[in-house]
């Protein structure tokens, strides 16, 4: 019973901090709320017995990706004054569109029938690193190798794009 309440509180906090990402005016504050959201999602993963994914989520998202965002924001030195604002019409239209998307999806989910688990899973160790590593290097070894090509392409693209043009010409 207490775990159930904890899960609901975590879900509410996650939604609240995700809303603050969109609603807060200052970009740095948005980044901070997004880091909080990622930590709360990691807490949700721990509640779901996905311990390794929770730690990787914390390190990759809250550690690496958000530091990158924060670094770029501070490099560009944005402030609240030169924050671009969208018009009221765009805000109303996007609120309507988002609200109707939520309405349709929730109405579809309400009547969903999820298959019951066939056999009861006795050990809940599926989220531990031993099991995940075994699966990653046997069944999913090809996507794992292909993702390294994606990373090489991303590295080359990022270096090429972020270089100053005069240096490229020389």
């Amino acid at each position, binding site marked *: *019973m207490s775990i159930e309440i904890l899960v609901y509180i975590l879900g509410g906090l996650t939604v609240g901090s995700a*809303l603050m990402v969109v609603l807060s005016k200052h970009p740095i504050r948005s980044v901070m709320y997004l880091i909080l959201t990622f930590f709360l999602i990691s807490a949700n993963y721990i509640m779901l017995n996905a311990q390794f994914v929770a730690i990787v989520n914390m390190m990759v998202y809250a550690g690496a*990706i958000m530091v990158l965002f924060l670094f770029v924001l501070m490099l560009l030195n944005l402030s609240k004054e030169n924050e671009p604002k969208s018009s009221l019409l765009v805000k109303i239209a996007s609120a309507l569109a988002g609200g109707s998307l939520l309405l349709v999806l929730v109405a579809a989910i309400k009547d969903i029938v999820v298959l019951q688990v066939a056999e009861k899973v006795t050990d809940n160790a599926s989220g531990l690193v031993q099991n995940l590593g075994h699966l*990653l290097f046997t069944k999913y070894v090809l996507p794992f190798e292909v*993702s390294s090509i994606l990373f090489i*392409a991303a590295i080359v693209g990022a270096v090429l794009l972020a270089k100053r043009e005069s240096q490229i010409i020389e």
Partner: protein
Amino acid sequence: MILATVFESGVSIQFYLILATVLFVIGALGVMTRRNSIILLMCIELMLNAANLLLVAFSSYFGKADGQIFVFFIMVVAAAEATVGLSILVMAYRNARTVDVGIFNKLKG
């Protein structure tokens, strides 16, 4: 010690479906509302995380780890997307001195 799953303590899978949907809609709302292109990228990360949450929830529900492997691949794609997207934005900022997404209208012929 390995804890019992939350599903055994009475939380339904519908809760996670609704939670992931709400997070995804908040991300989509941010993409539509905000004009700061860095916050746009952040809202895309939020939508990817909503998908991750749903994958982990179903992986835990069925007791199979395959969904959690897919979360790793989504993280790989998100990291690659963030680096390339941010470098494009830095270059656009260097040329136009603004992070408004409206500058990309200039790409129209």
